[in-house]
Every structure is written in structure tokens, then in C-alpha cells.
């Protein structure tokens, strides 16, 4: 358990299967004296012990969401509204900096998009693991090193070599794995993976994902996977959250979402995947670009600019959340066609 006291009121406020609850989360960036929202009114339940994927194009607010989950949005951005509450930690959006520091890296850990450069170039990997252990007041820092060595072996790395190496002595794939070791070594309750395999070739990618998957299963680790890759989502995730222009447009269990996508955006995403069998030209890319931060419409549907089913109502009213009956499949769309498969 983390060193941060659990607040019973907040702990009991969450259902037993929800590890993290996000409500009304709005993150804004200040650009030229205008507050532009990168995330708007995001509601999300991250399930205990499951892998929740957050999928979206670049600029959809994925990485901002990852940072906001750790209350780490930095200037010129800020969390303008909303709460992020963890079952075991309480509300991170209300913590002071010291409590936040203790939670980060210990209870909530993150593997970065730029994991290849997440190490201090001037000290050895082992020394940095010790820095991590000391920062979180581990009683036996050596045990942390042993745990790291075990994880390294598991990821088919030569543990002795890796722990005594400097960053520049490791290859890209090795650094990425080291990043994952840093994420797992203190046995966090929640793991955030922000595009953990973007920089890797296909083979390293699948081996890294396999390791993450097996450790996640073993520890029943609550995991949030931020990605733009529907293939990775299909392979790993239990649930999927689709993010577009800073809003959640659809949320469902993975198989349900892939078989019966509701929102026109999700449909387009799935249609864009080339099939292994059949005519590759059946894959249809989604036309157009996601709106830039400044161009996101504040009223109406954010997707309407690229939507094939656009209606008048989409201009004026923001679609509410509809739930597919008897499932936990939710989407936000005015189009009646969305209700049917």
C-alpha cells in the first residue's frame, strides 16, 4: 500500500470494481491569452485490475489525459475543472505537492511516450533505481534492485549489464524496457502506459506488450494504455475509451466496440484498419484532420466537421451520453443510425 492515507469517505464513494473515477475533467492550455481546452468534461471509470485503453488521433488529448490522471499537467496547461479520484489514494486533483510526489512513481506509475529518454544520462541505471527507492523511503533499497533485476531477466535483458549501464550504452528497445522496469519496480496500484511502444519496431513492440500483459495479469494491475493503434488495443485491452478532440465519444468492452462500433468516428477508425484477408483497398482512411486546439467547436458535436451523418442538431447541441441497453457500452452521438449496429 502507498504511504498516503486512504480517506474512507472517498474510498467508499467508488464502486468496488472502479480503481479510478474521473468526473467532469477539463484541462485547458493558455495560448495567446486564450484558454483552449484540450480535454472537456471527461467522465471515465477505470476498472480495477483491467487494461483500459484510451485511443485517439494525435491532438485528441490522450497524453494530456495521462498527465491529468497523475495531476501533472504543467504550464501553460492546467486542470480547470473536474476531479480524479483513486480508490486507494483519494482525490489526486486535491493533493498538495508532497502527497502528490509520494503517490507518483509509487502508487501511480507511468511509462512515458519518450521512455527512451526517461533516464538521467549521467548516472547508471542502478543508481537511478536507488534514487527512486530512496525517494519513496523504501526500507531496503537493495531489494528494489533485486526486483528490478528480476524484471529485467523476465524481459530477456542481461540484468547485471543493464543495471550497471548508462543510458547511452543501451539500445532503444532496451531503454524502453528499462522504462517499464521503472514503472513496475515499486509495485504500483495503477500503471499508466503512454504510447509505450511507439518508438519500437514491430517485433520488439509485440514482445514488450506481451510482457506487460503477463505482468498485468499476474498482479491484477489496473492499467491505462494510451495509444493510437487499434491493433494494440485489440490485442491487449479489456475496455476501450475513444477520445476525439478532448471528449470521450465512445466507451465499451473491447470486443463489443470492435464488433459493434456506434459512434461514426469509431466506425471510421475500425474501417481504416486493413484486413489480413481480402482486398486491402477495402480499408478506408478517415478523410480530413482532427481540429486543432483553437478550432475545436465549443457548442455542438466536436466530430461534425468530418462526420458523414452530420445533421442540423449537431451544430447546436452537444450530444449527450447514450447507453446501449443492458451493456456498459456508451457513446455520444445524435444520429439515430448509431443506435443500430
Amino acid at each position: 500500500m502507498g504511504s498516503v492515507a486512504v480517506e474512507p469517505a472517498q474510498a467508499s464513494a467508488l464502486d468496488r470494481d472502479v480503481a479510478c473515477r474521473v468526473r467532469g475533467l477539463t484541462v485547458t492550455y493558455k495560448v495567446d491569452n486564450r484558454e483552449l481546452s484540450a480535454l472537456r468534461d471527461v467522465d471515465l471509470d477505470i476498472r480495477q485490475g483491467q487494461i483500459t485503453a484510451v485511443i485517439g488521433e494525435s491532438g485528441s488529448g490522450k497524453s494530456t489525459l495521462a498527465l491529468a490522471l497523475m495531476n501533472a499537467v504543467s504550464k501553460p496547461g492546467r486542470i480547470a475543472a473536474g476531479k480524479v479520484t483513486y480508490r486507494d489514494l483519494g482525490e489526486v486533483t486535491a493533493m498538495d505537492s508532497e502527497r502528490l510526489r509520494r503517490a507518483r512513481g509509487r502508487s501511480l506509475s507511468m511509462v512515458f511516450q519518450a521512455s527512451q529518454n526517461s533516464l538521467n544520462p549521467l548516472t547508471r541505471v542502478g543508481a537511478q533505481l536507488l534514487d527512486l527507492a530512496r525517494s519513496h523511503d523504501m526500507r531496503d533499497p537493495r531489494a528494489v534492485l533485486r526486483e528490478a533485476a528480476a524484471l529485467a531477466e523476465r524481459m530477456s535483458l542481461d540484468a547485471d549489464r543493464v543495471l550497471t549501464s548508462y543510458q547511452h550504452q543501451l539500445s532503444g528497445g532496451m531503454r524502453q524496457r528499462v522504462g517499464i522496469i521503472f514503472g513496475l519496480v515499486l509495485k504500483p496500484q495503477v500503471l499508466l502506459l503512454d504510447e509505450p511502444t511507439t518508438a519500437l519496431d514491430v517485433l520488439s513492440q509485440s514482445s514488450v506488450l506481451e510482457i506487460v500483459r503477463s505482468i498485468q495479469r499476474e498482479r491484477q494491475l489496473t492499467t491505462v494504455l494510451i495509444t493510437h493503434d487499434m491493433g494494440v488495443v485489440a490485442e491487449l485491452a479489456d475496455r476501450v475509451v475513444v477520445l476525439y478532440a478532448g471528449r470521450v465519444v465512445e466507451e465499451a468492452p473491447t470486443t463489443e466496440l470492435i464488433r459493434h462500433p456506434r459512434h461514426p468516428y469509431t466506425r471510421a477508425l475500425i474501417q481504416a484498419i486493413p484486413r489480413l484477408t481480402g482486398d486491402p483497398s477495402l480499408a478506408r482512411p478517415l478523410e480530413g484532420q482532427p481540429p486543432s486546439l483553437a478550432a475545436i467547436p465549443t457548442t455542438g458535436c466536436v466530430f461534425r466537421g468530418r462526420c458523414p451523418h452530420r445533421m442540423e442538431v449537431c451544430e447546436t447541441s452537444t450530444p449527450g451520453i447514450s447507453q446501449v441497453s443492458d451493456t456498459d457500452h456508451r457513446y455520444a452521438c445524435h444520429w439515430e443510425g448509431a443506435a443500430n449496429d
Partner: protein
Amino acid sequence: MKSLIPRLIRRLFGGIIMILAVASFTFFLIHLIPGNPALSKLTSLEMSGVQPRQAELEVSAIYGFLPHQPLYIQYLQYIWQLLHLNLGKSIMYAGISVSHLLLLALPWTVFTVTAGIIVSFVVGILAGVLIAVYRDRWFGNGITLFSTFLHGIPQLIMALLLAYLLTTIWPIFPYGSPYKASMTPGFTLPFIGSLIFHAILPVAAYAISSYGGWALTMKSSVVSVLGDDFILASELRGLKPRIRIGYIARNAILPLFTTLTLSIGFMFGGSVFIEQIFDYRGLGYMLITATTNLDYPLMAGAFLIITTAVIVANILADFLYTAIDPRIRVQ
């Protein structure tokens, strides 16, 4: 660290070559001076009735070579004497060997220059960190402005200003000589205190005129390191602030070491002005007196010793750099 010894040997070898090059340069420089001082000395000795043999010996003792021999023989004689650490004899301090004079002067310059570099480096780095941290506020901007202003003032002017204000108008600090003349040198507290007291103004002149450069370089270095991914990573991993500051500081100081190497030479060059202004009897003072009194052997010797000091300092700085940056250690 296995590669350290061969590397040191390579660097020392390179240093010796450079020293020889400078020695050759000073030799030919003296020959290019109109009137050929060595020859005119020989002639004037002979004219004043000294035996030719005696006169030759004397000139040879002063310059390390005989002026009427072929140039290459003179050159070889000079280098040969040099290899025996014989730099000839001073003219203005008649009969005293140049190496003796220089060895007396060297410690004072090394002391003040080193102190000046350390003080300016430390002050500059701290100021740079402050500017970087408070870069959006008037406090940071104030330090930037102040540092830029002082950086623009040459050492020479700064030294004159300090000497005028603090030894003449308000005589707070002593002027001249490295320690109080009435004291006997030794490892005693009052003597060391006097040494430091006398060194304050020269050291301040070095430091004030060069800390601004460090501060501005450090500021941009810190700002760029703050934007690095691993700093964000260390924050998201919840590292203690003390450890994070260590990460930032070490990475930010690194690029400054290259400049440090260059500044050593600059500081030794500055000693020519600063020591003369404060009447502080170090190498720079020695060099300028030798020049004004046409004491060529002393001049050549001073050149040589300053070169050597700069080369040695460079080698030291280079190895220091290797010690703190693992990326340039040869595998």
C-alpha cells in the same frame, strides 16, 4: 577507466609539443625584434673592454645562445638549454636566473587566477540557476541585466575601478604585494589571513568581470535541461526535490566545462593587466615589467611559463570533464 593512462600520456605528449612550439615561437620573436638584443649586448660588452671570450660567455648565459652563430645552431642551443630547464638570466635583475624569478612569481598568479576562476564559476552558476528559476519575474530579469552589464566591462577597467574606489577613495583593502611586508611567510593563521586579504581585490577583479558569462550560459543550459524528457520523468516518478535538483545541476553544468577550459587562458592573459594595476607581483606583473625594460630572456620565460600553466590547466579540465560525463569515456 583502463583507457585513462594512455590518454593522459597522449595529452601530456601533446602538451610538450605545444610548449616546444611556443618556445620556438618566442625564440624567433626575439630574433625578429629590430636591433637584435643579443648581438647588441655582445657588442656593447666588447666595446666596454670585456674580453671577447668573457663577453660571449655572458651573452650565452643570458640568452642561452650566441648571436653570431648560424641561426639553427642558436636555435638548437636554446632548445637544449630549455630541456635542462635553463631559461637564461634576467637582464634587469642582473645575474639572477629567469627560472628562479619566475618560480617566485608563479604561485601568486596561479593562486589569484585559480581563486578568480573558482569564485566566478561558482557565483556565475548560482546566479544562472536563480535567473533560470525566476526567469519570468523581475528578480530574474534584474540579475540578468546586472550580469550582462558587468560582463560588458573589460577586466582592465574593472580592476582600475576597484583599485581607485577601494584602495584610494575608501582605503578598505591593501594595495600591492601579496602579503603584509612586515610578516614572515609561514603556515600561520595571521599570514594566511593577510594573504587572503591582499588577494581579495585582484580575485574580485577576475571574478566580477567574468561571472556574468557563466551566469548567462548556465541560465540557458538550465532552461534547456528543464525541458528534457528525463526531468519530466523524474518528476512523474516522484523523485525527491533534492535528487531532482542534483540531476538538473549536473546535466546543466556539463556544457560549461568546455568554456571553463577556454577561460583559463583568458584569465592568465588578464593577469598582465590586473597584477600591474594592483602592483601584485605575479607572472603578469613580471611579464609587463620585463617588456618595458626590454628584458628579453625574462619575457620569453614568462611567455613559456604562462603557456605551460594554460596547457596543464586544460589537461586538468579535460580529465575533470571525463570524470563527470560518462558519454565521452572511451569504451
